[in-house]
């Protein structure tokens, strides 16, 4: 027990106490003025305010679109990449390095890089698309609401794919070769063995990847902060960023906590789902 206790005490201090306190803060009006914190109980006031706040609904909608699209794109692209790298041609260590580099790049450095790539006047994306004849004159990629949110999405997909692809690759390598051999004996073609062997055995891994990616997409922050600060016209204000802005720019700590609680509740449900997927079962599948 005394092997585990120090770790648990530390986690309790930096995690469980703040979580409980965060719920309590959401029930108060907490203001920061001149370095002093003033608190006053207002019951569910912050939450009723939340439900009638158009900015909150805008951010919720943005987040829903961002997360759903991101999960779909990341899952499909990662599965494709994993299949490529599992093919005899793709097994070289070179491709593993290609996967690990975007993962290791700091999200902030990544955001700064893309800010430069997407620059309206001198960015390389404009130069590239102009020389290919796709566009005639420079576009302000982060200037219009729809385009800004989608570029945020593309950049985050770029950053997220490698890791999920690694998860899926590990899953693919665990599909027993004997199953493919059996499918081959039964006369199954490559497409059939993908549908009937690969996908069913990968079901668990794909489910885990989807849940994890949903959780990760809910906490995208650095990208929004560096690329758009939530603009234009709150088009890229995701819930996480909104909670930050309300708390640390508007210094409305209670209301910020209420938004943070919404994110926490969503994540909590997803984390529970993840644990349920991983929980060791008595009988592990049919095999």
């Amino acid at each position, binding site marked *: 027990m005394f092997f585990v206790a120090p770790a648990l005490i530390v986690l309790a201090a930096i995690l469980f106490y703040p979580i409980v306190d965060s719920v309590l803060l959401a029930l108060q009006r907490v203001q920061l003025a001149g370095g002093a914190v003033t608190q006053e109980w207002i019951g569910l006031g912050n939450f009723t305010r939340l439900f009638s706040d158009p900015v909150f609904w805008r951010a919720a909608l943005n987040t829903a679109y961002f997360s759903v699209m991101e999960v779909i794109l990341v899952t499909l692209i990662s599965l494709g990449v994993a299949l490529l790298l599992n*093919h005899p041609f793709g097994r070289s260590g070179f491709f593993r*390095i290609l996967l690990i580099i975007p993962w290791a790049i700091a999200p902030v450095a990544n955001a700064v890089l893309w800010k430069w790539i997407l620059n309206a*006047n001198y960015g390389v994306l404009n130069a590239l698309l102009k020389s290919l004849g796709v566009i005639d004159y420079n576009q302000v990629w982060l200037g219009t609401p729809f385009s800004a949110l989608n570029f945020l999405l593309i950049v985050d997909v770029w950053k997220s794919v490698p890791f999920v692809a690694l998860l899926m690759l590990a899953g693919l390598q665990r599909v027993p070769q004997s199953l493919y051999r059996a499918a081959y004996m039964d006369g199954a073609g490559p497409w059939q063995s993908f549908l009937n062997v690969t996908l069913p055995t990968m079901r668990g891994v794909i489910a885990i990847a989807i849940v994890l990616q949903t959780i990760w997409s809910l906490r995208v922050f650095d990208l929004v902060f560096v690329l758009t600060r939530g603009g234009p016209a709150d088009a890229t204000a995701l819930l996480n960023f909104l909670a930050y802005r309300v708390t640390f720019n508007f210094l409305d700590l209670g209301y910020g906590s209420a938004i943070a609680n919404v994110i926490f509740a969503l*994540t909590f449900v997803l984390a529970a789902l993840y644990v349920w997927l991983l929980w060791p079962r008595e009988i592990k599948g049919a095999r």
Partner: protein
Amino acid sequence: MTFARLQQGGPLRQVMVIAGLILFTCWSAGPVLWLILSSVLEQKALIAQPPDLSPRNFTLENFSTVIGAAASLGRGIVNSLIVAVFSTALALALGAPAAYALARLPVPRANNISFLILATQMLPGIAIAIPLFIVISRLGLIDNVLSLGVVYLSFNLPIVIWILRGFFLGIPAGIEKAAAIDGAGIFATFWHIILPISLPPLSAAAVFAFVEAWNEFFFALILTRQQAQTTPLVIANFAGQYQTVFGQMMAAAVISVAPVILLAILFRNQIIRGFADGMMKG
């Protein structure tokens, strides 16, 4: 068609795989190459459309200017190093014994505790940021590298425990029995027998924790002001202030990401095995 041939596929599929691999290479490496190229090109060549890549435009000036001009970058790197090393060391020191106990010793409800710890790793920073900010402000520990390092335990400790637990679960029971017959207690077994054979997963966990701490931005933004600013903050400020000196911005970014990319490449096999497996095994 033999089975081995089947796995490679016919000519059509081979062409598709090669095309896919080329596409994947461009998509992954393109932005990174552009980052490096931008950092060694003169401003004039960089803002030409299309960029002028002739060899005479290559220069290391961006790097020397950034290193010379921005004292904040040097301080940021030192701070990041302290935070990352401190947080990683603490996570390993607290996490390794905990992981061992959860995997091998008769801890009541070990499974529940393990999964609770795993779930905490999923928490978004904002869920704990506001109370932590209030507490740390009251303690007067804002803008302090060590308090930042302790906060980083909130995500590093769970991940270290989870990676190591996965490894410890796979150790054959005979090893501990043999140690017990030789009269080794639990502590001696852990220290002299288990830890030495756990170097690969320990290094994977360490690299993982180091990279996460080095790259972290959100808590650093909230909990530091001037003295304790870490590299990501310096880079973000840079991008806000010097919007137009693109080459220098990229040079600063290259300096900030180079150490962790090197680490990640060196330890890629341990990371891939340790983490990919850890996230999927119950």
